[in-house]
C-alpha cells in the first residue's frame, strides 16, 4: 500500500521536474516532506529532504545538459528510510539513506535521458505529425514520464529499503557524531549556494550583510 503511494508520489514528482507543471514539488525539501507525510512522519522526511536539498543547490538545469534527478531520488530514499526504521531520528540510517539518494539521483537522471530519447523517436522521426497525432503522443510522453517517475521512486524505495534493513544494524558510529557529520556536510553544501549569485562586489556586500543579519537573528531569538 505505502509502496503504491510512494510510486504515485514519485510519478507526480518526476513529472513536475520537467514535464508538468514545474511548481517545484520536485525540490528535494518538498518531496522529502511529502514522503514523510505519506508515512505519517513529516519531520523525518524533512530531515532527509533538507540534506538532499543542500546537495542540490548548485545543480542547475542549464540547456540540454544532463543532471541528476534529485526529486524522485528523495522520495525513494525517504520512503526506504521511513519503512526500514522505527519512529524517531536514526542518524546512521539517515546517513545511509542520504548516500543512497546521492547515488539513485544519477540513475533517475539516466532514465530522464532515456525518456527524452523515446520522446524523440515517437515525436520527431518520420517527419512532422498531424495535429491529433501530435496531441496524443505529447500526452503519451507525459504519461510515460509519470510512470517513469513512479518506477524510479518505487523501485528505488524498495531497493533502498532492502539495503537499509540489511546494513543499518551494522552502523557503529555514535548517534551524536553521525548527526554532527551530517550537519557539517549540510553546512558545506549550503556554502555552495554562494557562487550561484555571482562573485562581484555587490554579491560580497550582500553576503556579508546577510551574515550580519543572521547573527543578529540568532542573538534576538536567544
Amino acid at each position, binding site marked *: 500500500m505505502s509502496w503504491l503511494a510512494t510510486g504515485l508520489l514519485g510519478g507526480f514528482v518526476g513529472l513536475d521536474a520537467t*514535464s508538468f507543471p*514545474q511548481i*517545484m514539488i520536485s*525540490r528535494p*525539501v518538498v518531496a522529502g516532506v511529502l514522503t514523510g507525510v505519506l508515512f505519517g512522519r*513529516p519531520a523525518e522526511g*524533512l*530531515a532527509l529532504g*533538507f540534506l538532499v536539498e543542500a*546537495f542540490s543547490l*548548485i545543480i542547475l538545469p*542549464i540547456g540540454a545538459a544532463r543532471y541528476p534527478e534529485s526529486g524522485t531520488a528523495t522520495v525513494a530514499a525517504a520512503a526506504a528510510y521511513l519503512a526500514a526504521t522505527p519512529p524517531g531520528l536514526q542518524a*546512521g540510517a539517515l*546517513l*545511509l539513506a542520504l*548516500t543512497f539518494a*546521492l547515488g539513485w539521483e544519477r540513475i533517475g537522471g539516466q532514465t530522464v535521458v532515456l525518456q*527524452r530519447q523515446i*520522446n*524523440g523517436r515517437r*515525436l*520527431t522521426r518520420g517527419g512532422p*505529425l498531424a*495535429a491529433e497525432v501530435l*496531441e496524443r503522443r*505529447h*500526452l503519451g510522453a*507525459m504519461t510515460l*514520464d509519470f510512470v517513469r517517475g513512479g518506477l524510479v521512486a518505487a523501485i528505488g524505495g524498495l531497493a533502498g529499503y532492502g539495503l537499509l534493513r540489511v546494513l543499518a*544494524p*551494522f552502523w*557503529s*558510529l555514535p548517534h*551524536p557524531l553521525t548527526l*554532527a557529520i*551530517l*550537519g557539517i*556536510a549540510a*553546512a*558545506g*553544501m*549550503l*556554502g*555552495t*549556494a*554562494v*557562487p*550561484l*549569485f555571482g562573485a562581484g562586489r*555587490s554579491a560580497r556586500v*550582500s*553576503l*556579508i*550583510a*546577510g551574515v*550580519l543579519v*543572521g547573527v543578529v*537573528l*540568532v542573538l534576538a*531569538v536567544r
Partner: protein
Amino acid sequence: MMRLPWPVMVRAFAVQGSWNYETLMGTGFAFVILPALRRLHTDPAALHEAIRRHEGTFNSHPYLAPLALGAVIRMEEEGEDPAVIERFKAALRGSLGTLGDQLIWAGWRPLCVLAALVLLLMGAPWWVAIVSFLLLYNVLHLVLMVWGLRLGLAGGRSVAERLRGSALRRLQPRLMAAGSFVAGVALALVVLRGVPTLDMRPGHLWIPMAVLAAAAGARWGERARRFGVAAVAVTAVAGLLAGVVT
C-alpha cells in the same frame, strides 16, 4: 485589454512534456500553440500545414515560452510570412533561455529554496517552510507566464524591444543580490545554531568546523559538492565496516 487565450495558457505548463534531443521543446511548442491555430484555421488542410511548421526545433526557459507563443500567435494572426516566423523563433529561443536560466534557475529558485531553508534553520515548523516556499516561488512563476503571453501578443515580431524596456532586465541583478543576502543569513544560522531539522545540538567544535565547511563550499562550489558526495559515501562505508569488524 486583450483577451488571454486560456487553452494556450493552460497548455503552456506542459510545454516541456515531450522534450527531446532532436527538437528540444519543439514538439511541445506545437502542442501548446495548437488551440490558437485551430481557431485561426478552420480548414483541416490549412491547420495541418500550420501545425507542421511549428514542430521544428525550439527552446526557451519553460516559464518564458508563453512570450514566444504569444508573439508567434500574433504573427500568425497577421498572416506573417512563415519563413519570417521561423527566423523569429530561431532568434528568440536563445534569449529566452538565457534570461530564464539567469532569472529563475540561477536566481529566483535558489533564492526561494534558501529562504525556506532559513525558515527551517530558525526552527519554523515544516509546513510553514514548505507552504511559504511553494506560494512564494509560484507567484513569480505564474506572473511571469501570464505577463509573457500578454507581452508576446502585444509585441509580435518586435517583442524584443518591449522585452528590453521591461522590468525583467532590472530584476535580475536584484535577485542576485537578494540571493547572496539570504545565503549569508543561512550560513550564519547554520554555523551558530546547527541544523534543527537534524535535531542536533552544536558541540564546542561545531562552530569552527561548520565555518570551515561553509567556506570550502563557497570557495569551490561544484567541486565542493563532488567532494561532499564522496565524503558522505566514504563515511557510510567506514561506519558500516567498523560495525562489521567489531
